[in-house]
């Protein structure tokens, strides 16, 4: 290694400049070439898939590797300055292009008209908070957060506590956690079989079959029971997300020291009192972070509504309304404003995260 470092210092300046220009150019040409060939070639689908995966996985590594070869040519002092930027450069570049700059651009677009051609001040914001459709979306998002998030946490905690004392903890946790792994789209299909409605006594939706069996009238749960239909959609979220809360809270419960609990029992405290006075305060940190995670997740809910009702029957939420404004009406002004409303809603969580991390001394 020392020899190669010595060799590097000996290398001439024109040589370094030559390689510093050639290697990035070669990289750009090579990958642009592969992209065009793969896009235009009429290959057998499986072969195409294999080639695409190989390129996608290997390409990024070869870019790092080849650029690093160039940097190794530089004198030691420069190498130490430039190398960190090779390491973080792609990450910062992607984040800047795909998240940071777009956030600013969306913010600007939220003050412009539908075609982003002239500034309209706060008109879009005024519309979001007065237009009936958009207001419904805001109201529904609030319903999702209040009922969905609360139910996930409460049920998750309940199941975690029950599982802790039961004789089949692992099995129960796996069952409740499993929906976490599947997509909201698949979950939507699953729940269509629960909520399906047709008139008459023969029902293929489970919920209506139960209602009919008890002598009730079948209901069109996700469409006609406004505004309660939102709650039936929220149940799907609860079914999927409770497992997440349960797993994390269950891990936190296990950290409560047994001797504190024993001492409290000796003093004659009941189980319920112990739960609220000792266990809850002990896991409050975890409880808070799980709550914020689920709230952030719930705020952006999209797939469930899209698959179950498409946003009809007053089930529109901010994310579906965003999609509608953006894609169907091409109204970039409203679309951007809705995205910014979502962003404002998560700002407290951003602040909370930063504080948490500063407390842990990670920065």
């Amino acid at each position, binding site marked *: 290694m020392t020899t190669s470092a010595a060799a590097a210092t000996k290398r001439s300046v024109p040589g370094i400049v030559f390689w510093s220009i050639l290697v990035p150019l070669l990289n750009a040409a090579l990958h642009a070439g592969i992209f065009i060939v793969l896009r235009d070639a009429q290959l057998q689908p499986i072969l195409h898939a294999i080639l695409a*995966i190989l390129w996608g996985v290997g390409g990024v590594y070869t870019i790092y590797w080849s650029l690093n070869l160039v940097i190794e040519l530089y004198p030691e002092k420069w190498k130490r300055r430039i190398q960190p930027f090779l390491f973080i450069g792609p990450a910062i570049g992607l984040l800047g292009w795909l998240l940071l700059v777009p956030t600013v651009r969306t913010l600007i677009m939220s003050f412009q008209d539908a075609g982003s051609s002239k500034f309209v001040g706060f008109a879009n914001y005024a519309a979001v908070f007065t237009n009936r459709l958009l207001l419904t979306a805001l109201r529904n998002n609030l319903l999702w957060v209040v009922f969905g998030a609360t139910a996930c946490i409460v049920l998750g905690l309940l199941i975690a506590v029950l599982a802790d004392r039961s004789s089949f903890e692992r099995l129960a946790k796996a069952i409740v956690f499993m929906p976490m792994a599947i997509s909201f789209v698949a979950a939507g*299909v699953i729940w*269509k*079989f629960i909520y399906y409605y047709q008139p008459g006594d023969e029902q293929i939706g489970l919920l209506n079959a139960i209602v009919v069996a008890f002598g009730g009238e079948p209901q069109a749960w996700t469409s006609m029971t406004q505004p309660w239909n939102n709650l039936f959609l929220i149940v799907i979220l609860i079914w999927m997300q409770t497992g997440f809360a349960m797993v994390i809270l269950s891990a936190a419960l296990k950290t409560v020291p047994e001797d504190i609990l024993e001492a409290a029992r000796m003093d004659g405290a009941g189980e319920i009192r112990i739960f609220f006075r000792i266990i809850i305060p002990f896991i409050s940190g975890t409880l808070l972070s799980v709550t914020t995670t689920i709230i952030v997740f719930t705020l952006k809910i999209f797939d469930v509504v899209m698959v179950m009702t498409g946003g009809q029957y007053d089930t529109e939420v901010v994310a579906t309304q965003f999609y509608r404004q953006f894609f169907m009406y091409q109204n970039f002004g409203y679309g951007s404003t809705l995205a910014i409303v979502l962003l404002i809603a998560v700002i407290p969580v951003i602040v909370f995260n930063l504080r948490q991390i500063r407390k842990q001394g990670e920065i």
Partner: protein
Amino acid sequence: MRRKSRRTGSKTLVNAILAFICLIWLVPTVGLLISSFRPASDILKTGWWTVIPHREDVTQDRIQLPKDTDLRQPIEVNGNTYTDEQLRSGVKAPDGSTLIWENRRGRLIDVQKPGWTMSKNFTLDNYAGVLTGKTYVLKQPDGSERTEKGSNMSRAFLNTIVVSIPATVIPILIATFAAYAFAWLKFPLRKTLFIVVIMLLVVPLQVALIPVSNDFAALHLNGTFLGIWIVHAGFGLPLATYFMYSYISQLPKDLFESAFMDGASNFTIFTRLILPLAVPSIASICIFQFLWVWNDYLVSLIFLGGQEDVQVLSMRIANLAGSRGDAWHLMTAAAFVSMLMPLAVFFGMQRYFVRGLMGGAVKG
């Protein structure tokens, strides 16, 4: 002694409540699984739970009336008379059986008696329809037949794999490089840039969609695999960087110093030392990112668009669920096919999965 018995009593109660909750949690998925193996006409006619043995009126016998029976007059069956109205909704005969029209025009009556029954028709046709696009004959509830083309999802399955694997590997490789630099290298603006990464953790991706989609349209990246890899990489990066940082920054300092003493460059340290050491963490975040991409719908919807040859599973299933309300048989099988991969990951690598998820707790 008394205390112990009270404990076991409460344990039984806990077990019972938990078992009930688990049952509720399982029923929806089981319903889908069973439905996906039922013939299309059965799915639309009876609930999936009819595969469980249950008591129901079962047809024991059939009575053929003369073809010229006048339906407007009282109809005589086995010595008793009934009206057409009664026979349509079913009527009790004196011997306890129920009489109901099987075929009113053919003047055929079913004699039903309560008995144990279960629906026993199972088929693999739904899966065949979804996986190979094979055409098959569908029996309508009214007896007519209709040929239906299955929708070929094998292409969508392949596309989902082509999207998911690079969209997992690329961001995690980039993130691990960045995490190493953030943890162990010195460069200007290090803290500021890291704070930016933390801030981006929960930024809803909706704020990025419109501008990025405009950029992609200008670059002709919409509807290409490269385009969707890039967006998934960008949206997955903050979490992956943060997750890898929290692991790499906790490695002992001596490790690097001794490697530096031996004259190893940062790149060698990274590839020979960090990557192998970080394998468990990388596995966890990989699983999280992989499932995230596999299950994603919104990003694919916007950046892959309507072209059939690049569409992924979630889009095809959502289309089925939205546009063809009657394609239940295809929907069930397709949904289950899309769930195979996540469920395999879930049951095979539960430990890594949970860890990735807990790390992902901060992601929005």
